[in-house]
């Protein structure tokens, strides 16, 4: 009897151990695959136009920069900028958008791909991008081609109020429309998990109405509060960033693709002491624990890494090509990167305008003749008055 009991107990222990091990194993593996997404998308929207809303473009471009740095490619980013600040005629430093004063960080460059620009940034286009109901002629770069295993980051910035966000100074999107759009996305299985960040005045009002699962939302200010801008730059003449996104950018600069920072750290970004406004967040619709959600789940791109502890021998290295002497005269130079032309040869400068001067012979001849005629008419006697 005790043997049976012992056997049973042993079995139970072993099974418990096995289950425990399995659980551990699955939690480890589960942790590795717990997010459930296979690709990442980002929809970054700046809704403000005009030069004095420089900071909204800088906000969006900072998030774009971080997202791209952490691995999301341009093909998976839908960037919508309502105005062109880099080439704005009021920009004293053209082709730049700075996010730090004293021009420390230029978030613009020739690797910024804007998908919706200028007047294309409308409420209708934004909602069509989210829901996927675009005309068939829309190019791929303008589509959100997400599936049910996509984690999507949606970042909105601009001027907002209680329950709405202003687009282009002419129309607005309400929080209900946004919630319905996300429900459409859920119904069409267009996202696995969605992180919604909004940096506007009274931003928390925009996520009040969400009702779809797997949504996490952050806002820069509560209802009744204004989100404030961070620093003006005296050379450029406008505020460069908003406070919330500035500190978000600082936080994200710390994050690298292998970082284990989680959402709880993100919620702590920009407390009231720094931001003046109270950032808010909403996680009740999210099924996972925010502490287990990595920043890179939304801001970075998923990398499936196979860990192996074996050493692998690569094939023997390729031998360098045999130097053919051939005819000793001709020395074939090894192909190097083409030498760049000096800038002055590329940029044709306007030829410096040389003032035309009459030839000396002409002046000489003319004045000799004039003097001759003068003396002929008035006689030589005037000569002594000159010399």
């Amino acid at each position, binding site marked *: 009897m005790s043997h049976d009991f012992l056997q049973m107990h042993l079995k139970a222990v072993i099974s418990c151990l096995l289950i425990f091990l399995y659980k551990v194993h699955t939690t480890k593996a589960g942790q590795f695959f717990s997010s459930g997404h296979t690709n990442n998308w980002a929809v970054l929207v700046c809704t403000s136009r005009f030069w004095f809303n420089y900071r909204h473009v800088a906000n969006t471009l900072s998030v774009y920069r971080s997202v791209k740095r952490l691995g999301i490619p341009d093909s998976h980013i839908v960037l919508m900028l309502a105005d062109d600040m880099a080439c704005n005629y009021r920009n004293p430093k053209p082709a730049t958008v700075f996010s730090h004063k004293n021009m420390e960080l230029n978030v613009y460059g020739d690797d910024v791909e804007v998908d919706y620009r200028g007047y294309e940034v409308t409420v209708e286009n934004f909602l069509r991008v989210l829901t996927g109901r675009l005309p068939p002629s829309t190019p791929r770069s303008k589509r959100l081609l997400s599936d049910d295993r996509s984690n999507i980051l949606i970042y909105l910035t601009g001027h907002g109020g209680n329950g709405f966000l202003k687009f282009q100074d002419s129309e607005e999107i309400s929080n209900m429309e946004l919630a319905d759009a996300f429900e459409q996305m859920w119904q069409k299985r267009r996202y696995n998990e969605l992180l919604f960040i909004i940096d506007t005045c009274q931003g928390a009002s925009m996520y009040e109405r969400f009702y779809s699962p797997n949504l996490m939302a952050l806002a820069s200010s509560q209802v009744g509060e204004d989100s404030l801008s961070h620093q003006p730059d005296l050379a450029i003449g406008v505020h460069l960033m908003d406070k919330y996104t500035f500190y978000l950018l600082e936080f994200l600069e710390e994050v690298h693709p292998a970082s284990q920072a989680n959402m709880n750290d993100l919620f702590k970004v920009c407390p009231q002491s720094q931001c003046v406004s109270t950032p808010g967040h909403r996680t009740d619709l999210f099924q996972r624990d925010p502490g287990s959600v990595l920043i890179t789940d939304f801001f970075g791109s998923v990398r499936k890494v196979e860990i192996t502890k074996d050493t692998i021998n690569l094939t023997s290295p390729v031998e360098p090509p045999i130097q053919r002497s051939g005819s000793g005269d001709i020395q074939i130079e090894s192909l190097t990167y083409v030498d760049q032309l000096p800038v002055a040869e590329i940029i044709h400068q306007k030829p410096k305008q*040389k003032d*035309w001067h009459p030839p000396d*012979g002409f002046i000489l*001849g003319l004045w000799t003749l004039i003097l001759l005629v003068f003396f002929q008419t008035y006689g030589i006697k005037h000569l002594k008055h000159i010399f």
Partner: protein
Amino acid sequence: MAAPLTLLLIVAVTIRAVLFRSSLAELISERVEVVSPLNAWKRVVEGLALLDLGVSPYSGDVFHETPLMIYLFHFTVDYAEIVFMVSPYFVDCLSCLLASLDRAKIAIGSNNLKSDLLFNFPGCLRHIISFSTCGLNNAIIALFIFCTLKGSALLSGILLALATYQSIYPLTLFAPALLFFLQRLYIPVNLRRSSFWCFTLQYAFIYVGSLVVITGLSFFLLGSWDFIPSVYGFIFSVPDLTPNIGLFWYFFAEMFEHFRLFFICVFQINVFFYTIPLSIKLKEHPVFLIFMQIAIISIFKSYPTVGDVALYMAFLPAWSHLYRFLRNIFLVSCVLLACSALFPVLWHLWIYAGSANSNFYYAITLLFNFGQILLVSDYFYAYLRREHHLTHGLYLKKKDGTEATLVLK
């Protein structure tokens, strides 16, 4: 004489300076009655800018000034206003001089100065602030007349060459100048006398020689003969048909190509044609002949402007003693005043309002030139009549004792 003249000049300078600075200057400098393609200041500036860029200013149809003008304006392009303010003075001084010369003949008081200013005003006013080089051309012609009257054959020949070099038409002034010198030197105008030919050849040599020297010198300025087709070819062949106060543009705008050469020749000969007959008629009165020639040039040249009109109008006070013999003075002054007023009106109606067409403007051009011709012929009649009265007395009687009138035939 000197003090009133100085005062007059100061007043004139002030008025011109005020007008230059006003916004009227820009308005007037674009009017077609005032600037022509030959003498527009805008074209001079354009030509100098082309030169600074290393391109010959004669390439293209923009610049039609002579190289000596390039040389002159190269230094004064910033001080253009001063040049334009100074150059019409020559015309003023000359007309005063003419008046004073004739004073010796007729003994009229110094009210000539006032009439001189009065005559200067309507004509000169428009053209002085027009920023055209017409003022300089007029100044050269005025200087030429001055030197002729003073008796210096060398200077007169050189200045006439310069005036011809600028625009070809002063060539016709060779004959009156020659006649004046012959009269001065008491050489009778007899084709068989060797003294006549001697002096004629001398004068012609001075004239042609200086013309050749000036042309050669202007070749050396830019190193090419481009200026000859650009300046003289332009004057003769009239390619630019912008409306002006002359007669060429309308006619040649509707001309068929194969008649064009014929009519160019006809129109240009018209300018030179009156020289010989007038010289024969007025061989004892070369000063009046100069006036007539200048008037004919101003009427019949290919691109006349009000500047040319102002040139011979400035000399009218010298013949103020002919006033009592003028028959059409009221008609002529009314016609000229009315046309001056109607030119801008019809231009506006044609170009801007679109309710008139080129025929309206051409009609006013015709009327204006008709008025000018009437004025010139009226003065001609008055001069000849006065000469007749000088020899035959003031009250003419026919053979049967009744009063006679003189008729110009």
